[in-house]
């Protein structure tokens, strides 16, 4: 097959059940070009790239390579067409050496002494693109940057002309990121092309030739990099209009409920994720946290809910400090949590709904005494939740995994809210839900506030924050860039803060 001179996706649409992930998207890229693909989580970037990598078939639309339509039925088809993808989480065998990993799926190796041929190929590629690597090191011994180089060599050894990179710098140190960009520049000089999925605006600005922005499954903007700046990109990402706020009861925020002072938290990789953050939340108040994901929101939420150890600083709930890294302690202090990954953390899919309706509260009266679970009471409680939070289920005995995403979220939210007005930490509570369920969830959050509860709402959906919040803080690289209230917030201000300038 000839090298990819140009690749075009025309009118691509794809939906999953009720959610339209991609709607009529056009994309084109030429040899020697780096295209940035920008958008919030759930904007449809990954779906679009998975279509290009052959993992999904589009519902509608065509893909053309050098003007010829092709069908991509699986990653093998894509590889044969010269498309390679490097996932955010590397697909390498840890215990194997670099050479062995590259050997996987390397078809050109001869039957006898394949090592020799592969070693030669690795040397040739690393000379050509400056990809320094020791082929005999086991992968678990390598830094994230080196592992990424292995992935790049792997893709190049399969003759990838177009490289899709999914948030490549999210696991790298700044130096490693610079090295990566050096490599990418060498590659495009030699006729390759790169699609770079990223959240980071400055990254897009510094390396891409062109940028495409997706928003809610649609193409919301496309431009040459000379024609835009960071503020404009942020605006393209988040839309132009401030959504109208929902009706809220006219209550003033009361006393301080949660008090965070000078909080420092590291991420799983040991890099600073939250840096010296201080904030208060009051009763009858919804504080929204805006920001591009990966700027420390997850670590902040995990610390408040007792799932992560802070390095420094204090979390105080109604005057009581959160002492231990234990979700039970946070629960006892009245902190409830609608987790970001609701299926992974929020429910036990194989247990019936009624047992899921008391997860975490299962140690409290009246649901259990020290030994016995009171299942009649629990089933009643589950029935109440199902009714008052409109959970669509055949019965409270249904296994949780048989419920739809929206109904799972309604149950989790109901479970967390029903214990009374206190502090609710909601992380991306409407992510992936259909419009009706999302609206329902938002109204419940407002109802909690109207009753005197306080809410910390982390969301990437700015519309949602405008509709629901009393106050919005914008988080960037582990710090708050500033706080905005309904009379001061504008798209421009938020956009600039999301891109890293202080408000």
């Amino acid at each position, binding site marked *: 097959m000839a090298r990819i001179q140009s690749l075009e996706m025309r009118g691509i649409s794809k939906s999953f059940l009720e959610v339209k992930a991609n709607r009529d998207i056009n994309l084109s890229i030429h040899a020697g070009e780096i295209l940035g693909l920008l958008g919030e989580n759930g904007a449809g970037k990954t779906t679009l790239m998975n279509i290009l990598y052959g993992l999904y078939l589009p519902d509608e639309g065509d893909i053309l390579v050098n003007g010829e339509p092709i069908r991509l039925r699986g990653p093998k088809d894509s590889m044969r067409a010269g498309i390679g993808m490097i996932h955010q989480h590397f697909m390498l065998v840890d215990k194997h050496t670099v050479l062995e990993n590259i050997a996987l799926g390397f078809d050109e190796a001869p039957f006898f002494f394949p090592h020799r041929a592969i070693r030669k190929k690795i040397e040739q590629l690393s000379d050509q693109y400056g990809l320094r690597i020791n082929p005999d090191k086991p992968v678990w011994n390598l830094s994230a940057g080196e592992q990424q180089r292995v992935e790049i060599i792997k893709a190049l050894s399969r003759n990838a002309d177009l490289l899709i990179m999914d948030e490549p710098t999210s696991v790298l140190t700044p130096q490693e990121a610079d090295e990566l960009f050096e490599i990418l520049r060498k590659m495009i000089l030699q006729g390759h092309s790169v699609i770079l999925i990223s959240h980071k605006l400055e990254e897009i600005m510094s390396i891409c030739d062109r940028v495409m922005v997706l928003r809610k499954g649609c193409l919301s903007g496309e431009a040459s990099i000379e024609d835009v700046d960071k503020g404009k990109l942020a605006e393209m990402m988040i839309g132009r209009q401030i959504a109208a706020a929902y009706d809220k009861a006219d209550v003033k925020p009361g006393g301080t409920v949660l008090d965070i002072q000078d909080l420092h938290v590291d991420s799983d990789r040991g890099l600073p994720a939250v840096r010296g953050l201080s904030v208060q939340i009051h009763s009858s108040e919804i504080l929204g946290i805006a920001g591009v994901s990966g700027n420390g929101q997850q670590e902040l939420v995990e610390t408040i809910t007792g799932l992560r150890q802070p390095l420094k600083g204090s979390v105080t709930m109604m005057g009581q400090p959160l002492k231990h890294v234990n979700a039970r302690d946070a629960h006892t202090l009245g902190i409830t949590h609608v987790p970001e990954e609701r299926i992974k953390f929020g429910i036990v899919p194989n247990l019936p709904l009624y*047992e899921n309706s008391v997860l975490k509260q299962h140690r409290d009266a009246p649901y259990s005494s020290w030994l016995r679970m009171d299942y009649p009471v629990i089933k009643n409680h589950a029935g109440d939740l199902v009714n008052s939070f409109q959970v669509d289920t055949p019965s409270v005995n249904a296994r949780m995994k048989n419920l739809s995403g929206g109904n799972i979220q309604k149950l989790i939210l109901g479970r967390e809210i029903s214990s009374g007005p206190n502090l609710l930490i909601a992380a991306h509570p409407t992510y992936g839900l259909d419009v009706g369920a999302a609206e329902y969830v938002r109204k419940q959050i407002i109802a909690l506030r109207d009753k005197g509860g306080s809410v910390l709402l982390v969301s990437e959906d700015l519309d949602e924050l405008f509709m629901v919040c009393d106050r919005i803080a914008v988080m960037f690289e582990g710090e708050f860039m500033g706080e905005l209230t309904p009379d001061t917030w504008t798209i421009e201000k938020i956009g600039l803060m999301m891109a890293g300038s202080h408000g």
Partner: protein
Amino acid sequence: MYIELLPREKVSPQQNVLFMAAALIAGLLAVSVVFALNGVNPAVAIFYIFKGSFGSWYGIKETITKGMPLILIGSGLALAYKAKFWNIGAESQLLAGAIFATWTGLNWGPHLPAVVMVPLMFLSAFIGGALWGMVPAVLKIRFGINEVISTLMLNYIAAEFVKFLVVGPWKGASKGGYPYTDDLPASSILPHLSHSRISLLLLFLAVASALILGWLVYKSRFGYEIRVIGENVHAARYSGINFFRTSLLLMAVSGGMAGLAGAGELMSIHHYLSYPDSLSAGYGFTAIIVAWLARLHPSYTIIAGLFFAGIIVGGDAIQVSMGMPIAAVRVFNSIILIFLIMEDFLISHRVRVRRKNHA
């Protein structure tokens, strides 16, 4: 043409029985082929097997005798497996129980009446098994050591320790140089039903604890946390379940149950501590299968344990009555087991054979 496996959503009790029966019949047919190839009339052999296990008073009594330790251990294993804690060390937890019970019996038995001694023996055996079972729990939670490896290795340590005891410090003065401890005093011995080796007390203990453990898993707070851990560790962390305490407790119960089985064998059958393989006959491993046959429901191990004991006893019967070698008996046991395991898979999955389609 290709084969498609789909998970079954619901299995009715009738389906359960039907599948079990079908698996048994298929297993017996396969066994028949093996028997026939060896020049044994399969019909006769199978007749003797059933006569020896469920088809005669003697057979039934032997089946119950061998069923009791399987129920005790199997129900404890089912509890641990519900939390996905893979305890392969019941054999050594049984031995630890027997060691503790022997010590209690030899030292206190001469001074105390049976009313005190019997509960005391069981209690010390439970504690022995529990302590031995908690070792791998600590290793797993504190140091991340895989419990399959640690429980398996602890089996060897316990077995060698028993050997050391019976040839060394605990070697009985009355045993003429044999590697046995002295006989336990009469107050520490469980009486049998006449013409059998069944202790009613032990039978009651086995059935009652299997039922209690069933309640524990499905109706108690402890059981709820066990099942949450087993089904979704992330949700367990999110809901603040204390892994260390729960794992320690569940392994104490699981090991303690095996310890009870050790005490039962000691007090009812052997009356003294001897070499590990004569004390247990591999009950700790057989009970793993029993727990799975019971679909990890502790109470169902009553049925599964008796059923499996029947297979063992039936195998022993043809060894005696038809003069078949021990290897043939093992082949019989294993083939039946393989078919039962296949049944376990087939009842949870639908198999559909489809012609290759060109989608």
